[in-house]
């Protein structure tokens, strides 16, 4: 069977212009033996997400250490794309974190990058499947800086500082910011664990941002006669369950 080989679409993300240059040069060298095409590049995570909403890439070469959003967080957001690309990390020094993982799961290139190694990684990427989000989580024990949702073909980032509360509703979780609501598909327990320094649980189904607490009010229309919490910038009151009443004491003092 003769198959017309499709060119591998490669996207480059690195905050350093010379490093992007280097990758372009090397990819150019590879293209003599391997059908590939550089479809774009970006200098930071946000720019990458914006561009990849419009361009389809098969492989993303992704620098790990970048300002604001590192490569590992970006890779998690990229997984929300309708057709997630295969990620190959590039790094100068923190490979020890990745080495623990099987090469079949996560591929990485050490800077300075060698042509042979890049070629090998691209060949492998043809057969590879995108890295699982859970695997990426394990790599980066730090909490993410953004939540992401896939909406109308585009990935929206919600900076975690803007989140006022999270409320579990049937299948989804409502993410409330001062402006609007979003729906994400994650587990409330996992989110509580990940953002333990920012968020606090007030109810079986809700987490609120500690910084956003404006005050507490007695009352309750659900007959719970318990406390309600008021959040900065929101009119609605959220119920605090009986088991979580202690947070009224903890937070009203400060």
């Amino acid at each position, binding site marked *: 069977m003769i198959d017309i080989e499709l060119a591998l679409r490669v996207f480059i993300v690195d*905050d350093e212009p*010379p490093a992007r*240059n*280097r*990758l372009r040069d090397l990819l150019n060298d590879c293209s003599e033996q391997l059908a590939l095409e550089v479809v774009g590049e970006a200098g*930071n995570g946000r720019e990458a997400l914006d561009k990849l909403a419009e361009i389809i890439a098969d492989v993303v070469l992704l620098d790990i250490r970048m*300002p604001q959003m590192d490569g590992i967080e970006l890779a998690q957001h990229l997984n929300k794309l309708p057709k997630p690309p295969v990620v190959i990390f590039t790094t100068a020094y923190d490979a020890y974190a990745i080495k623990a993982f099987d090469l079949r799961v996560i591929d990485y290139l050490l800077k300075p990058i060698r042509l042979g190694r890049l070629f090998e990684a691209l060949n492998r990427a043809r057969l590879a499947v995108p890295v699982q989000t859970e695997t990426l989580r394990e790599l980066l024990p730090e909490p993410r800086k953004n939540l992401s949702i896939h909406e109308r073909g585009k990935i929206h980032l919600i900076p975690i500082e803007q989140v006022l509360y999270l409320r579990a509703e049937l299948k989804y979780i409502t993410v409330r910011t001062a402006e609007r609501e979003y729906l994400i598909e994650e587990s409330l327990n996992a989110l509580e664990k990940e953002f333990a320094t920012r968020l606090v649980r007030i109810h079986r189904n809700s987490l609120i941002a500690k910084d956003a607490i404006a005050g507490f009010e007695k009352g309750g229309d659900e007959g719970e006669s318990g406390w309600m919490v008021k959040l900065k910038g929101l009119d609605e009151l959220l119920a605090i369950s009986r088991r979580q009443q202690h947070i009224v004491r903890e937070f009203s003092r400060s």
Partner: protein
Amino acid sequence: MNKAPSIRQNARQDGLPNFRNLGTLLRILIISNGLALMQAILLANSWTGVAQHMMQINTLLTPVLFSSLLLLWVAQPWLNRIAYRRGMVAVTGLVVALTLSIYYFGGELYRPPDSADGYFDLMRCGLLSAVVCGILLLYFRLRSRVLSRALSDARLQVLRARIRPHFLFNTINAVLGIVRAQPKQAETALEDMADLFRMAMSDADDLVPLGREIQLSKQYLALEQMRMGDRLRVDWQIRDVSDDVLIPPLLLQPLLENAVYHGIEPLSQGGSINVALRRNGDQLHLVVENPCPVRADVPHQGNLVALRNIRERLDLLFDVEASYHVESGKDFYRVEIIFPYVSRVKERPLP
């Protein structure tokens, strides 16, 4: 690498202390008075007796101390030039001679009226002053030995920091990235890198001219600018400072490296590092200030290693004459270092 002459284990010869350093003077005053206090406690049989004996000892000790320190201050340049052994003999001889003459000319003040043997008393004072002087010289010798080991350790640490993989590999990668399109810039970058490594491995003197350190820092910044482009901006403000002022080597450059690594790199918009150098009387003020990402939690750990190293070296070189201040704000980091403005090459900086 171990054999490299640059990182000598015994980099410093024994030497006399710098009698023009405030720290040295304070140490001499404290130790000699401490010895006097011990003698007073031995002689006395009550607490008021201790005070009386102390006063009695001090009538001789204080004039001897101050006149010796004054003469040693004057003789410092000459003492720097002669061998350690001869210097030791000269200092002891000077102190003993001063003691004897002050005792002799002090007349009734020092001679107890009931003392039968004036000759014994004279000899005793001379002998005691020689012993105290010997103890002090021994102390300074031991101290400088301990310190010189710490100095070579410091150099090793600086070297290790220089070979920080982050800097090394990213820079090599960046040079590879520009070598095809801009071979000239790539050449300069490699030369700058070689200079940085040479400096870290160098057999430099205790102090280097400021101009050299500034040049090295600018080479370092050029390398970082190659990688980061206009995200990294540097504002130099040098006032009333000449290029041949002497400063400890690798003082400014590691501070800049910290500012870049912890301050500018994590900011997506980058920022400006402010470097200010100015002379204030006989002191040199060095301030490095950089923006950094807003962080609610504890200040970054990474900074501490390099900063502690610099602080140790300043302690070793200038004792109490150097001061060091770090201000870690919510979105900025500021290091201020004040140390003596040393412009003569001859002077030995070690206390």
